[in-house]
């Protein structure tokens, strides 16, 4: 059931991410929701589920992009594996832990993209901004999901 919810969430977040306008005041960046979903999954789901979710999200993202197919899935898969192996040492409810997880996931995907495109100062600035955005989105997504889960349990 939870996997079905995550699958639908992935597709819906991908749709919103593709359709929302870019942020002109941030150099035309697009807010990314999928790294936040991967980070949230890596912090909360069982290890196998987190890896499967990361791969599915990565493949979905690559299929809606001109990226070499699988490059996001690879970076999300590696990040989810690392996060789920170290998550026991941190309090996952703390915002800064969630922010770090979101930033790391986004940075890993951006790093993989830069490996293909080529590194530049502008590219690294963009990587940092995207990581910061994803950090914020991860906290918001975690809060919203936790609230929704609490309401549905009650």
């Amino acid at each position, binding site marked *: 059931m939870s996997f079905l919810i995550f699958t639908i969430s992935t*597709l*819906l977040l*991908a*749709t*919103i*991410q*593709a*359709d*929302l*306008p*870019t942020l*002109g005041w*941030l*150099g*035309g*960046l*697009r807010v*990314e929701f*999928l790294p936040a979903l991967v980070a949230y999954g890596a912090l909360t789901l069982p290890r196998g589920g987190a*890896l499967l979710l990361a791969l599915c999200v990565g*493949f*979905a*993202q*690559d*299929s*809606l*992009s*001109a*990226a*070499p*197919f*699988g*490059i*996001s*899935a*690879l970076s999300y*898969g*590696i990040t989810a*594996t*690392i996060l789920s*192996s*170290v998550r026991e040492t941190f309090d996952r409810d703390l915002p800064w832990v969630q922010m770090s997880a979101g930033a790391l996931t986004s940075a890993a995907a*951006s790093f993989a*993209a*830069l490996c293909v*495109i*080529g590194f*530049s*100062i*502008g*590219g690294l*600035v*963009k990587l940092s*901004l*995207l990581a910061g955005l994803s950090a914020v989105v991860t906290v918001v997504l975690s809060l919203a999901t936790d609230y929704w889960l609490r309401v549905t349990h009650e």
Partner: protein
Amino acid sequence: MKRRNWVIIGFLGLGWIVFLGQPTRVSTGLRMIFVRLCTPFVELGDHIPVVHARRDLARQNGQLRAENETLRKQVRALGELGQENIRLHELLNLKTRSPFRTLAARVISRDISNWWRSLQIDRGSDDGIHANMTVVNADGVVGKTISVTRSESRVLLLIDPGCKASALIQSSRDAAGIVAGTDTALRTEPRCQMMFVDRKTRIKAGDSVITSGLGGVFPKGIPIGTVAGARLNPQTGMYLDVEVKPAVDFHRLEEVEVIVE
């Protein structure tokens, strides 16, 4: 980290290198599965309020723009220069450049990532589209098709670093080069770069850049953009790097045309 996690990461990396890193049957098949799975949700965007309102405005805007494009095409077709060009071609007994046969397509989605520049159109192999077809609009080159399913295609935009077009400066026909996107940094107004231009070439801002027809993808004579500036390549010192402002407004693409013949 436990040894098992390193093994998982190793398998992921190896799996990507072997199966997905290059366009193999596995990667193409897997991509097609995900494209088919995701496309209905892309269309679902029409029912999400924030997206719906934006699309409504975009659609109205698109209709007005389509009308504008038709008028502009008529103006261009009837222009004095066009007439003169036809007469000159007849005089020289050259084959007149026939208009391309195009197929209109609607843009259904943009690239989800911040690192690549592409869009998805609602025409696929069932409509006679295949990879490496030129995509244009009334202003000029939009890009080329890269992956095609039965009912939709992905178009790599000219402003993506991976899209390269052989080009020349219209006024001085000998100034040829390769135009590619440079859109890796933060920039709201996309730019392209024309590389490998002879350093002795005289170029001024505002010169038109068109496709040269070399390379086999983009037909000759389609507008790419205008020269915004030029400087000597600092690494080689042999060529000019020409900054090109694209003719197409990539932020406002709603309908495009695919050149099928």
